[in-house]
């Protein structure tokens, strides 16, 4: 009771009376009380003291905890912060006035006062103890936090000089009396009737009203929501291998779906047939705009002479491709030279020749390479039944020709008995009887026909066209277009015959020759 005399003695008692007349402890919840109690744990016992520092519900030891030694009240305390039991409870309960725990000053109450009902607390039954209530004896007061299964309790208390402020399980003798602070509850949160709105859900709004108890009622339903939550996104499958996504805008509305796309199935290794000819037939399954699509591996290219349908038009080496592929076809030829009469009499026979370079990869064997006639028309085909092997085979190669060498075929043609001109296209055939296709394996011949005893008496031209459009320019041959004199004298015919003879003798001792040899 020394403490009581100290605290309440003299002027202090008058101060207490004055304060009590106007005091108003704040509304506090039980959680508020326990929170303040927790914040003091670890500070020292300070007889006559009552302050500490808090950080929320935790102690804040940036304020030194202090230390106590000796036997109180004749004890010694070092430091500013700490509390004795009644100062601790009084500061937590904020009686008689609101006060921070860090505001030092013991307050007007001692432990024994808490054993009797006062203006700020009421003595209660022990069996009705709840968190934040007090238990007090004539010498000590503590705060009840919870009971334990055996009927004892867990308390916050400024226990004594050697222990300080602690939270601990303990027993209380029959000397202890329970008490409850007034003004327990939740502080007024709003003005009755006030309304408050807030955003909710997916860009919706909801409202609440302040009830007559000056507490907010529950929030109403969330209305006006959009179909999605802002910032979210979703994805879906499309076609048979693609996905697409869309995102939710800040106004909780879905944006448009993105393009349908996806990775190639099996990493693009699945084979398929594009249905196109040639190399374009080979395809791989790709994911195009989300759908499985067979896409060719090789795109069409200009046709080469290589036994491949490079342009994927369904025909191999068509159009007389002049560029050789690598590798070249087994059989390929280039017309390098030829000799053809321009004008012939009806029924006249003439000997002609053509030189082809073996551009294929295989050797031309004697008698296996034929020169065929592509137009089977006895009236206009320059067919010579006396020398041709068949009506459509004008000549056979009579020597072997290695790749890169030139072979010469010689045959005769006979002018038809009537008509003004005759045309024929001669083309090489491989051993299987198939036409060679490129680069220029053919010779187109057009002969003007004359019913009189001399050729080209009308002064016209006899035309030949080599292997399609392209003759080998490297051949240097000047005979592509042989101009015959408009009027032939016998001397002229003699000179012409000598000229032809010179050409024939040039090849008579050689079965083949290279164009290069001529340079």
């Amino acid at each position: 009771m020394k403490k009581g005399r100290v605290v309440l003695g003299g002027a202090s008692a008058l101060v207490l009376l004055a304060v009590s007349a106007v005091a108003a402890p704040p509304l506090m919840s039980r959680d508020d009380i326990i929170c303040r109690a927790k914040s003091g744990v670890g500070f020292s016992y300070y007889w006559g003291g009552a302050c500490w520092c808090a950080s929320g519900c935790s102690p804040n030891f940036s304020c030194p905890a202090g230390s106590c030694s000796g036997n109180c009240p004749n004890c010694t305390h070092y430091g500013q912060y700490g509390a004795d039991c009644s100062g601790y409870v009084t500061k937590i309960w904020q009686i008689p006035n609101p006060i921070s725990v860090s505001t030092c000053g013991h307050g007007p109450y001692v432990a024994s006062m808490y054993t009797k009902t006062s203006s700020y607390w009421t003595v209660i039954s022990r069996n009705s103890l709840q968190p934040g209530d007090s238990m007090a004896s004539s010498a000590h007061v503590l705060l009840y936090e919870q009971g334990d299964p055996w009927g004892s309790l867990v308390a916050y208390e400024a226990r004594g000089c050697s222990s300080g402020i602690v939270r601990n399980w303990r027993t209380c003798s029959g000397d202890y009396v329970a008490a409850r602070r007034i003004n327990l509850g939740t502080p007024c949160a709003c003005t009755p009737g006030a309304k408050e709105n807030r955003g909710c859900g997916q860009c919706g709004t909801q409202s609440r009203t302040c009830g007559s108890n000056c507490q907010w009622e529950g929030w109403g339903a969330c209305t006006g929501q959009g179909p999605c939550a802002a910032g979210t996104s979703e994805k879906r499958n499309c076609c048979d291998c693609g996905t697409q996504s869309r995102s939710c805008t800040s106004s909780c509305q879905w944006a448009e779906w993105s393009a349908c796309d996806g990775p190639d199935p099996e990493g693009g290794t699945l084979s398929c047939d594009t249905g196109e000819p040639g190399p374009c037939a080979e395809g791989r399954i790709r994911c195009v705009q989300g759908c499985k699509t067979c896409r060719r591996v090789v795109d069409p290219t200009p046709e080469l002479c290589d036994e491949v349908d490079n342009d994927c038009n369904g025909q191999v080496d068509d159009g007389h491709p002049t560029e050789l592929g690598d590798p070249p076809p087994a059989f390929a030829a280039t017309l390098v030279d030829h000799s053809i009469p321009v004008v012939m009499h009806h029924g006249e026979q003439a000997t002609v020749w053509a030189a082809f370079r073996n551009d294929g990869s295989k050797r031309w064997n004697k008698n296996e390479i034929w020169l065929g006639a592509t137009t089977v028309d006895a009236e206009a085909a320059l067919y010579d039944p006396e020398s041709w092997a068949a009506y459509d085979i004008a000549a056979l190669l009579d020597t072997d020709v290695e790749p890169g060498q030139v072979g010469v075929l010689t045959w005769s043609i006979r002018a038809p008995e009537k008509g003004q001109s005759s045309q024929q296209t001669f083309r090489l055939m491989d051993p299987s009887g198939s036409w060679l296709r490129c680069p220029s394996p053919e010779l187109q011949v057009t002969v003007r026909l004359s019913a009189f005893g001399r050729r080209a008496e009308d002064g016209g031209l006899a035309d030949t066209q080599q292997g399609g459009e392209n003759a080998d320019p490297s051949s240097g041959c000047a005979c592509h277009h042989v101009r015959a004199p408009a009027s032939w004298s016998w001397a002229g015919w003699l000179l012409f015959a000598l000229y032809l003879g010179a050409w024939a003798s040039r090849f008579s001792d050689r079965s083949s020759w290279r164009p290069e040899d001529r340079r």
Partner: protein
Amino acid sequence: MKVSRGKRFWGGVGLAAVGLVVAATSMAPGSLAFSKNNKETQHVTSSVVQAQGPEVVLQVPWGPEKEALGRVDGDESASVGPMSFAIGQDGSVWFLDQSKFRLARFGKNGFEREVGIGSETFQDVEIASDGSFVLLDRLVERAVVVMAPSGNIVERIPVQGEGIEDAGLVTAMWLDASGVWLEHLHTHRVRVLDENLRPCERQVLRGREVAEGRDVLGARDDRGNVSLWIEDRMGGNGRQVVVSAPEEIGRIIWLQSDPYGNIYAAFHLLAFDPDDPARGVVDRNYGLRYDKNLQETGKWLSPWTIRQWEQYREVRVQSDGTVWQMGFEDGGVVVARWRWEA
């Protein structure tokens, strides 16, 4: 039966009352010394025997002398007496006289010896078979300390760890054949030292062990009714009983079993005037003995209850079933026991 605490105290100075068993009911209001009443009688049924006692074994006065025990009278703080006591193998009594920084042994001839403990914040003590002391400090050091008979500290481990989040919530410490256990809020126990008093991997089990893999637990409701029940660690819950007590039970003081599976329960009967919650109308201790199936087999009554001087350990039970209590009186400390007829 109502007992008013304030009218219970005895006349005379009783240091010489060791071993004395006196049956009396007289009270001496205002006396400061020990009471001569140390036994109460109660009618019991034939199947429920009453323990023999209380037999006052020791009465030690308060005081600064080494032959006396210390206490702290709180002044805006907690009042404390010796927080715990233990029984030596020779029947002597060790007091945790922490306010005098010591363990003090008293025998039939009074004070025998003391061992310094260097702190006044220990709250419980156990004595090992080799004479070592196990001390508990929940609030300041938050440690269990093993001290040799000489007083040298040989082990110190933290209280907090697996099973114990807050050292302040330890409700008991005891030593048995398997080691040292700490109890958390009367719900689960944690083994913290092995049988050699060495640190060990913590083992957490519910309740307090009875025997044969079973544990006993207790709970009080807010109307003062107490239930005890057995939990079989393999088979689940076993028998449960509602404690039959003559008055409202304020709290369970202690639960302990002996090697035969008998369970000893001590209760603080405490009731207040419904019209004046500050006025106590019942305040006494009450004990029951149960067999391992929670059949009530014995009871005892004690006039000593916890006073304004706080104590951590009030009751303990020896392996032969003898119940010991340390009670505080104005004149000093009383240690009494109750024994059972063979």
